[in-house]
């Protein structure tokens, strides 16, 4: 029995000594962390997407506590309520930002943009852009290898197998901007989320002259400038044969959409236009009554 007793005593004493050492170390080298950093980190999504410009959620939380104001600090993933809660913890007024959403500015689907070759290299848009101009006649449009899809950490962007173009899930999109950086053709843009998520934008980035662009893609912007004339709010500019709608100035009147001969301006999330039905012919009884 004595050897059991010896073992228990030796182990017990060792545990006691080590425990005391650990306690002493934890008291001596205690790191004083602002408890607010932990609180804010818990509120943040924890995806470490980097959309705020900091290397991760913890670094963003630390910046929130350290800085004197919330200027320039905004987690694009959080809702305004969460930002308000963060502001309440830090005690600074929150900057109210306009919520944004990623928009894919290319409509060059397989039907609209005939292919001129086959790209069978490494499945990456960046590699495809480097090897050659892609497998279509358009040197500006979507390459369709899905670099934006693999960049998205919120599962908000998917390739549509029908069109070969990426589709943004506007519910899931947090406007972190990862896809914008991933796209070698700079097709994706962060645009304001308007009321009811309504948007009007030029779904093309082709800077070629009209005939060249038209040959490459049926819905390419040809830089005709009709939309510029149609816009009453000076929201549309034409540069390098390409129209661009400034989302800050656009009032969503949709005049440009009707004017565009190429259908390259898209209006999304609008209710279907009411078709003005011809007045029903009056029945014989009605005519008699009159």
């Amino acid at each position, binding site marked *: 029995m004595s050897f059991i007793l010896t073992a228990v005593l030796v182990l017990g004493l060792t545990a006691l000594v080590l425990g005391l050492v650990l306690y002493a170390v934890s008291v001596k080298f205690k790191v004083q962390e602002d408890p607010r950093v932990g609180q804010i980190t818990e509120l943040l999504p924890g995806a470490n997407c980097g959309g705020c410009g900091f290397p991760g959620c913890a670094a963003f939380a630390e910046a929130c506590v350290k800085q004197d104001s919330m200027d320039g600090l905004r987690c694009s993933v959080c809702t305004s309520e969460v930002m308000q809660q963060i502001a309440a913890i830090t005690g600074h007024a929150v900057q109210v930002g306009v919520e944004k959403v990623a928009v894919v500015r290319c409509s060059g689907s397989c039907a609209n943009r005939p292919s001129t*070759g086959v790209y069978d290299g490494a499945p*990456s848009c960046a*590699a495809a852009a*480097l090897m*050659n*101009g892609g497998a279509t006649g358009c040197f500006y449009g979507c390459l369709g290898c899905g670099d934006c899809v693999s960049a998205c950490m919120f599962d908000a962007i998917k390739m549509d197998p029908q069109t070969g173009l990426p589709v943004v899930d506007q519910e899931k999109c947090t406007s972190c901007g990862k896809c914008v950086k991933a796209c070698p053709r700079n097709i994706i843009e962060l645009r304001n989320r308007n009321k009811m998520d309504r948007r009007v934008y030029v779904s093309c980035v082709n800077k070629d002259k009209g005939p060249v662009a038209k040959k490459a893609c049926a819905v390419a912007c040809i830089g005709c400038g009709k939309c510029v004339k149609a816009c009453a709010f000076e929201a549309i500019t034409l540069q390098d044969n390409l129209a661009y709608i400034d989302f800050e100035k656009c009032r969503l009147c949709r005049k440009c959409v009707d004017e565009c001969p190429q259908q390259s301006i898209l209006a999304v999330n609008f209710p279907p236009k009411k078709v003005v039905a011809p007045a029903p012919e009056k029945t014989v009884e009605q005519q008699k009554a009159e």
Partner: protein
Amino acid sequence: MNTFKIGGVHPEPNKLTADRKIETLALPKQAVFPLSQHIGAPAVPCVKKGDAVLVGTKIAEPGGFMSASIHSSVSGKVAKIDNVVDASGLRKPAIFIDVEGDEWEPAIDRTDTLMLQNNKSREEIIECIKNAGVVGMGGACFPTHVKLCPPKDCTIDTLIINAVECEPFLTADHRLMLEHPDEIIVGIKIILKVLGIDRAVIGIEANKPDAIALFQSKTTMVSGIEIMPLRMKYPQGGEKQLIEAVTGRQVPPPPALPANVGCVVQNIGTVFAVYEAVMKNKPLIERIVTVTGKEVKNPCNLKVRMGTPVSQLIEYAGGMPENTGKLISGGPMMGRPLLDDTAPVVKGTSGILMIPEEQAARLEERNCIRCAKCVQACPMGLEPYLLATASAAQDWECAEENWIMSCIECGCCQSTCPSRRPLLDWVRLAKNRVGGIIRARNAKN
């Protein structure tokens, strides 16, 4: 026989056109001259729309120190300066010239007489080469006048002439050697004079016994020029591989140059261009292009004016076979696929290759099985599987640490991979990115 030590593969040689004499192709209707046909800054056009030009008229000036001028290979009028899709698959600005007649600049000596006497000084020769827009004809298109002025702290002792032509299918250099040996020897002497040395070694792969025998007989009376037959192995025509095969010296990783180990390497085509530039006052306006492919009716070696559309070459060779799946500018290992046959012949176009559909399609990619065949094949001693993985994960730091900038893009790794992974595509992507990062870093410091 010597060869380089690390890596390398043995692709099927397929030199279908080795015994076809060089034929001259007719003038095109319109010639197109992309402004970046060389490594370095694009050339700057010095003609405008409507200008009349002669054969040999300079149409673009060098755009910087590392750049080369471009000359018209036809006479006629400048139609426009616009974008063209060249062999890189990207759109680049180019000068379009409508051909009218065939009027040459009077200063150019068009006769075939061999000129032996060279009274020009070193500086005059370099100026001549620079004015003629001569670039490396092996494919990389490095401006020759820059290569002939090695950094001051390097002592050059050997000029190596690259007559290896290790790329399968291509025979342009081989034919040039057989048909113009005397001009090439004069060209070598000119370059030796510029470098101020007296030893040149011509490296020829053993699959060209006729060229080896011809040059051995021609150089018995010439001191300083040595012929070195080399054991066949791809990519022996790579500058660093050739230096190792010929001298046994290894070039350190970039930014070190071949000059750091006392060598200057020039392609045999470049030597011929130097001869024509210095002795005949003829700028670089023509080159030999091999038009080939297993199914091609009449594979041939053609002397082509720069700017001729590829379609005209294909037509001469009997048209494109119906089952062509891929059209390549260059050889099968390092060539670039063409989007269509309208691309013009440029200074670096060594061949036009048509590959049948069943051989052109890439097979489905599988997972890496860690067999390390790519590591064994890499002539630079790199680990392609690792570089490709780092590139796919966008880990540019890892790629840089593993010497991605040493990659010569020879394609040995991709050709040996049993899982058919697109290793070279990934490596090229990472090389491009890391190169950008390094340039940005250097610009900051």
